[in-house]
């Protein structure tokens, strides 16, 4: 099996899961850097090139809110789950658990 194919399939598998993880983690306010660190500590590595555009996309979809604030003498953009994002997260989690349970039976 060619490694680039495995990498492609791995990315496809991760894509949806990353959205779920980011939404869930932003139940608590984070700025990009701390969010990435926090996800990495929980075992989910995500590079900046993926995370920041994803945050913007989720914000433009109304699932996140953001604001610029100063911290450690630097301006940082803080993200948090919006009320709409909370509802979406709930539905996605339900879907995720259903899928997970089905997959557990299949594999």
């Amino acid at each position: 099996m060619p490694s680039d194919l495995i990498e492609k399939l791995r990315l496809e598998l991760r894509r949806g899961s990353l959205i779920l993880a980011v939404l869930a983690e932003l139940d608590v306010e984070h700025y990009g850097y701390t969010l990435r660190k926090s996800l990495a500590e929980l075992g989910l590595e995500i590079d900046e090139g993926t995370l920041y555009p994803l945050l913007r996309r989720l914000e433009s979809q109304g699932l996140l809110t953001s604001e610029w604030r100063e911290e450690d003498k630097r301006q940082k953009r803080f993200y948090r789950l919006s009320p709409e994002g909370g509802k979406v997260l709930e539905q996605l989690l339900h879907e995720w658990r259903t899928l997970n349970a089905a997959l557990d039976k299949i594999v």
Partner: protein
Amino acid sequence: MAGLIDQYLLQLKTYLPAKQREDIAAELGDSILSSVGERERELGRKLVDDELVALLKGFGHPLHVAGRYLPKQYLIGPGVFPLYWYALQAVVIVAAVIAAILGAIALLTDPRPMQSFAGLLWDAWWVALNAAAVVTLVFAVIDYQGIRLRLFEDYDPRKHEGGILSLRAAPLSPIPRSDTIFEIATVAILFAWWVGWIDFVNMTGVGVAVQFTEAIEPFYWPVLVLCVADAARLGVDLVYAYRTLPRTILRLIFSIAWLVLIVLLFRTDGLIEAVPGSFPDPSRFDAVTMMERVFRVTLFVLGAVTAATIGADLVRIVRR
């Protein structure tokens, strides 16, 4: 150190959309500085230039990073791409088949065959390239404008049942698209020759110009109309590449019409004459007779092929 980061962010900004430029650069700049700070804490010292360069490389080329913030764009999306790809192939194949047939004619008849063949290849390449560009443009517009294609929208498996002359009557058998493309190319060449786009007078190969006599006139419009109508019918076959009873009957009618014309042409005497003043050497006058014979042999072959097609279609209709 800050110089390198500023330079990186400046390059990034040049690739970003104006509205988001400052915002994205500021956020990414903070992320870079956070990473630098963390790395420096790990090392217990300031980063040297090479280490900073490695860190920035880890973030990616500014063009690549900026690309991730842009909306995903494509010229022709997955919705119409299969049809586009098929149309593109068909156009290129038709151009190639026409070039191949004209090339064969050039090789056989032109006094300077290689030169003529090379010129033809060059023309065929340009025709194919331009046709491909037009097809791409048309499909890009279809995709960009979100134009709904009836081909996809109206699809209903139940409609494969019957209907006089319906395109969607029950399929009898598939039609190989290569056959259809070959037929389209043949009709296109016949059409081009018939209307004079291909110069018949210079095709004797012995330096004597010949032309059709007035005896051809009664056939002019029937052949022209049949060419156009048959090309339209073949175009349908290209899109809906399966035989149906109504379409097989339609092809039978066309084949019979062609056969009638071929037989009438075959029975007509004196179809070809020398162009006045083009044969100073009387010994070459036989070229007219030779071309008449070639024309008759061609008609005979065409007639035989058409008769075979009629027979095959009759068998299909009887066996359906």
